[in-house]
């Protein structure tokens, strides 16, 4: 006789597929994370930059339309840019972002489709790299440290592993928790920005001109989610105290980037140039050591995915991220296995 068969309803034995058991771990992790007021606040603040970038897309498309009206009056091909209005619009709003110079080359061409695609890609890359990267740093810093450390402290491992759950499913379920928040804070706003940009463009011909951008957003999401979640969970698995994992998370980012900034400072002093001068940033020592910063490595990968760096330019960052991810996952797996 089944325990649950209390007579008022028939017992249904429709178990979920074993392929989705990890989902229960992810689901409960998201529920617990959302209990934190700070996580909710950070999630709300993650959507604020969308307004700035949406306005940027509006001005870009406004400048393009103005350009096309001007072209019509001059009897020139509508697909050729004839004025500098677009360039001015972008420069006024985004010139203070590092890497703005990458965009200048495209203005040498008069092909509207290429200009639009490049400008959109660049704007979305800056959206990923600057406001959202900082927000993710704090978001993951609040969510991930307790994910495994709390299971170690409360000895919850046996609750998981006495069920039909493998260690890989456990890790996958846990990794999905920060991943979902990263997707909600970056991918979803980025895709919505893309849709806003499409809606602001003059006609549907924009879609074939920019079809690759959603794919780049999704690939960039994977590039962001996998290393950050792996590092955060690895740190969480090393301690029973989530505050230590929390401190380590910020230390990994802070120390790596701090060390690289020190190299930049030393180089600029040596060269007698201002800090972040293009010659300083392109110097061999600064480029070679860029990968010690997790932030730079992620930026390098994103530049590659959005098409602003070649593999030859970004391989150090990509290899560094791959190494960090592999190391973190191996250590994480060993830590999960050890309490048994």
């Amino acid at each position, binding site marked *: 006789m089944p325990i649950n068969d209390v007579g008022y309803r028939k017992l249904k034995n429709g178990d979920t597929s074993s392929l989705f058991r990890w989902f229960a771990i992810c689901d409960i992790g998201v529920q617990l994370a959302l209990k934190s007021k700070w996580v909710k606040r950070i999630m709300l603040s993650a959507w604020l930059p969308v307004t700035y970038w949406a306005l940027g897309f509006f001005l870009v498309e406004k400048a393009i339309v103005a350009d096309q009206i001007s072209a019509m009056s001059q009897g020139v091909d509508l697909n050729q840019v004839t004025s500098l209005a677009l360039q001015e619009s972008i420069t006024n709003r985004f010139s203070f972002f590092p890497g703005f110079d990458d965009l200048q080359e495209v203005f040498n061409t008069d092909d509207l489709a290429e200009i639009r695609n490049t400008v959109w890609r660049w704007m979305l890359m800056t959206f990923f790299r600057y406001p959202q990267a900082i927000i993710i740093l704090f978001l993951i810093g609040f969510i991930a440290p307790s994910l495994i450390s709390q299971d170690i402290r409360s000895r919850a491992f046996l609750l998981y592993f006495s069920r039909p759950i493998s260690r890989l499913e456990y890790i996958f379920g846990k990794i999905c928790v920060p991943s979902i928040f990263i997707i909600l804070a970056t991918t979803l706003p980025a895709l919505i920005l893309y849709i806003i940009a499409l809606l602001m463009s003059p006609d549907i011909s924009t879609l074939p001109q920019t079809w690759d951008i959603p794919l780049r957003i999704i690939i960039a999401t994977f590039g962001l989610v996998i290393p950050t979640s792996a590092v955060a969970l690895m740190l969480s698995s090393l301690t029973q105290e989530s505050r230590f994992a929390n401190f380590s998370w910020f230390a990994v980012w802070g120390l790596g980037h701090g060390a690289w900034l020190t190299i930049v400072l030393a180089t600029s002093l040596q060269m007698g140039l201002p800090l972040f001068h293009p010659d300083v940033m392109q110097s061999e020592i600064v480029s070679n050591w860029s990968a010690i910063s997790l932030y730079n490595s992620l930026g390098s990968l994103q530049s590659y995915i959005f098409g602003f760096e070649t593999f030859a330019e970004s391989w150090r960052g990509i290899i560094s991220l791959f190494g960090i991810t592999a190391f973190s996952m191996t250590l994480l797996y060993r830590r999960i296995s050890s309490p*048994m």
Partner: protein
Amino acid sequence: MTSLISLKQITKSFKSIRALDGVDLEVQAGITGLLGPNGAGKSTLIKLLLGLVKPSSGTASFLGYDVMKQGRQIRNRIGYMPEDDCYISGLSGVNAVQFSGCLSGIPKTESLRRAHEILDFCDMKQERYRMVDTYSTGMRQKIKFASAIVHDPEFLILDEPTSGLDPEERETLLKRIRLLASKMGKSVLISTHILPDVQAICDDVVILSQGKVKLSESLATLTRTAEPSFCIRVLDNLDRLADALEKHDVEVSKNPDGTLTVASQSPELPETIWSAAYDAQVSIQSLIPARNSLEEVFLSTVTDPPENGGTT
């Protein structure tokens, strides 16, 4: 009868420490008590049955599955209540039980229904909505027990289920376990140090010591005395009855609890006892067959092992 657990020459070593040393064991349906001093290998044996540790050598099957290769299938059909005070911080009692159901593959809504039913079965009232972190030890034990049975497993492994419970809660939990076995056909393996618990509900007993099965026998056989004997409680003078019995040439011993144990090879021992009581003008309150205490059996097995790896 097919064995639910069948271990043959199982050995498990952790570096230089041999936690299990050539364990041969057959466990049948019913309630089996797993006894042993600290470090005897009970926890290792349980983890091995759960498929969480692999044996160094030997073969093991559990519910017909190979323990080495089919741990997942085994864990799908069993419920495990760990000894450790383990819980997921931040969840309410009912959500903790629901989560356990979800981990076993039950859809979320169905799992919540079952969690409520099981908590009703465990006599958990409105406290189920409180955070597990705020629970007393007894309530956490209830949550662990409910989590172990929420997915309706056919075999239950309970590791120290009554530790930290007050006598009333302990008695209630033992009744629930007995109910699960007798009415719902579940088989149970209880690992415990509390011998009265084993004596109260178990059908069979396995005693592990130094990684070996020292004894595996039914409880009834273990506690049976060597010769027919009875335990007598009287309403009035115990000494008068003892003197009268000695005159009938039977072995009499006084127990600290105010009873007499009477033993004799004679098949007419009950008649002799009644006759002596009549002679001594003593009223007998109870007359029950005497049993060996499990504690004596346990101590004698652990200190002077009979090396019996029999079948329960």
